């Protein structure tokens, strides 16, 4: 495996891990909020969250690029704050990936939260559990399966995404050239043997990882009773 590939793999793992972590941190409260509001205007927020799905990645990437450019409010603020340029940085990739993969995390979590029996939360409340405690001790374990789903969808999608990444990352080796972009390069440059090798490795590795994850999850399953 070439050094460039190793770089790309390392970068991909870092990107997907950080993105998934951020997705869970941001997506969990958002999904909870959406699942508990009975008004109809949060439906607008739900629809907004689903937007990145609809736009082709390159188009979404194009708009994000416009947003991240050094002369926009965000770009200027970022440069003030961190001293570095946002566009074509690893940070931009992370932000883009979070936006792009948000629906994959929010939607399964929201559906899961909606099915947490209110009654159990009431019991926990009478036993002295504050809402945060209730969430941690009841909701989280009851929806663990959906967290696995959400995290694996988010992680996988970040690994596989390349339209957005290509657009806002600029394919800079060691900085924003992730595995999907490397793979894309091989296909585009007609280096099919290399493409097969890399894709095969990726598939086998992710298959093994997901298999272990899902199998572990199956072992710890429980069922709601009516």
């Amino acid at each position, binding site marked *: 495996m070439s050094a460039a590939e190793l770089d790309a793999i390392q970068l991909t793992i870092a990107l997907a891990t950080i993105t998934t972590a951020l997705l869970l941190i941001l997506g969990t409260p958002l999904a909870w909020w959406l699942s508990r509001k009975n008004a109809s205007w949060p439906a607008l927020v739900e629809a907004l969250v689903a937007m990145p799905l609809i736009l082709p990645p390159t188009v979404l990437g194009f708009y994000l690029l416009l947003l991240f450019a050094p002369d926009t409010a965000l770009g200027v603020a970022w440069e003030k704050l961190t001293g570095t340029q946002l566009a074509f940085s690893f940070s931009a990739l992370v932000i883009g990936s979070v936006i792009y993969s948000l629906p994959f995390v929010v939607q399964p979590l929201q559906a899961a939260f909606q099915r947490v029996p209110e*009654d*159990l939360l*009431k*019991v*926990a*409340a*009478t*036993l*002295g*559990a*504050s*809402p945060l*405690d*209730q969430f941690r*001790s*009841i909701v989280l*374990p*009851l929806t663990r399966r959906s967290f696995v789903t959400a995290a694996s969808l988010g992680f996988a999608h970040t690994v596989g995404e390349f339209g957005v990444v290509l657009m806002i990352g600029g394919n800079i080796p060691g900085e924003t050239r992730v595995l999907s972009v490397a793979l894309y390069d091989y296909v585009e440059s007609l280096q099919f043997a290399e493409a097969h090798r890399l894709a095969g490795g990726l598939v086998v590795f992710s298959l093994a990882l997901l298999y272990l994850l899902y199998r572990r999850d199956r072992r710890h399953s*429980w*069922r*709601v*009773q009516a």
Partner: protein
Amino acid sequence: MPDRGITAIYGPSGSGKSTLLDCIAGLRRPETGGMVRFRDQTWLAPQRFVPPWQRRVAYVFQDSRLFPHLNVQQNLDYADTRRGTVGGASMQQVIHWLELEGLLQHTPAVLSAGQKQRVAIGRALLSSPQLLLLDEPLANLDHNASQQCLAYLQQLAGELELPMLYVSHDIEEVSQLADHLVLLEHGALVDQGPMLDLCGRLDTQLSREEQAAAIVLGSIGQHDPEYGLTELLVEGQTLQIASRDSPVGARRRLRIPARDVSVCLNKPEDSSILNIIPVTLTQMKTDGDARVLLRLALGGQHLLARITRRSADRLGIQVGDRLFAQIKSAALLMESSDHHE
């Protein structure tokens, strides 16, 4: 309602008993507003709402509602690690009382209904609340198990001075346990007051029940270890009840179901009925088609007796008559302690 002792909430199905407990626990806000106060704490007022997790109220729900992802031990631990006060029952005690030893590693899904309910009671006790709400906690327990639970609850109410609100539609349970009674019907308060007062009257909802009973207060007299009997002195009369190790002189309550009391004009001598005491008939009320309910004065206290109308006519009894009340001795087993008077 009193903030000490055991208050029973009694009423037909759908009368709002569970709803009332929900409001007290803070799980539901009454639509019409209202106030909930406990001791020096205001839990609900027009501008105030104390959330349930700060009320330190434990609630045993009608359905046991165990956490499905935790086993029995973990369900108990859940409450134990969040206990409100330092005192209260310990894990060992609760497991012992409720006989949960064999179940600790089971998940709720495999428990029988009665076992679930016992775990739910244990979980509520372990949170050592300042108020315990019980919504028909014994509905799925058999007679022996529920007797045992009742005894422990009573012990708890006494020892830990833990006030309880107890919902039940089993009047025997209620009168055995409660110091105070709240009667609900169609979501509205029908009557409330100390257990003893409400039980001895003929005009309450209670007296219309099949299982109407009076409650009398007495003090423990001599023990008769040979026959396992104890004397209870009520208004100068002596009743024989099954022994429990109560100290001589202690005040005890006795529930006497109306259907266990018959009357006769003269004192029979060769009957197996041990307790035959002189009373005065103070009130008579027909009860359905075939029966009458008698209110019998025993000093300052009252007994109820339910007899057939035909017997009443045959004996020709009238208000003011002096009669003998025969109390079937087996009924006298339901002695209950009375710490809260």
